[in-house]
């Protein structure tokens, strides 16, 4: 092989090594910088470019909301434990199991309503455009998952309904 070919091969390999090393370095430095921030609301500041005043207002709303959310979650966890006990005690779906499922669903619905109220309040504390974007994003992230499942299930069951 000619000398120039060896040189070109060496240049390509050295370039790849330099790029990968600097890629790792850049990523490492950036991660180290971002890891220092352990604030739960850091994403809001990053994504919606909030001012300190806006973030302070949202932090207040956030602090007020957390105990309510925690309370609902604890109640749901208690009901779920009771449901497991009922399910383990028999093989049939009894009336008690059905009732427990209803209680969990009701609690979950209350919690979701509270959550959506909180999202609305937070969106109002943001500039209008960012607020709209936040609300849409939060609805998509929190309720969209169920909507996707329900939609996929309804598509799956549609041909079966057609047979009946």
């Amino acid at each position: 092989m000619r000398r120039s070919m060896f040189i070109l091969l060496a240049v390509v390999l050295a370039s790849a090594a330099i790029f990968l090393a600097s890629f790792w370095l850049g990523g490492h430095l950036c991660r180290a910088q971002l890891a220092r921030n352990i604030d739960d609301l850091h994403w809001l500041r990053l994504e919606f470019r909030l001012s300190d005043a806006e973030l302070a207002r949202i932090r207040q709303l956030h602090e007020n909301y957390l105990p309510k959310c925690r309370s609902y979650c604890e109640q749901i966890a208690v009901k779920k434990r009771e449901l497991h006990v009922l399910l383990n005690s028999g093989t049939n779906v009894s009336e008690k199991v059905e009732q427990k499922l209803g209680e969990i669903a009701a609690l979950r619905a209350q919690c979701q309503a509270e959550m959506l109220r909180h999202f609305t309040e937070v969106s109002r504390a943001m500039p209008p455009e960012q607020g709209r974007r936040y609300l849409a994003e939060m609805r998509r992230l929190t309720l969209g998952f169920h909507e996707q499942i329900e939609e996929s299930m309804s598509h799956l069951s549609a041909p079966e309904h057609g047979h009946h």
Partner: protein
Amino acid sequence: MKNEILEPDEAKLTALLHECRPAAPSLPPRFEHAVWRRIERAEAGSHAGSWLGWTDRLADWLLRPRWALIGIAALFLMGVVAGALSATTAAKATARERYLAVVAPNQVR
């Protein structure tokens, strides 16, 4: 020797034939030099156009200290920026999950 002695008629004929022969076209000045120049140029062109000639020139160019340093600096800069962007995107996703886990725990979603 017999043939070398021309008859008077034959001598006339030869003289006429010489007169009738078309004159050779006159060559332009430095014709020979120009031909060699063209040959040299054609050879140099075929070498430069070949793939190996191209790699030779590229290797020479890359080994020049100035261009090598510029290349290393550019690669380093691009790598650092790409790494930082990639880490920022990943960190943003982590921060979003963190926020969601607090305001909308999995059992509520």
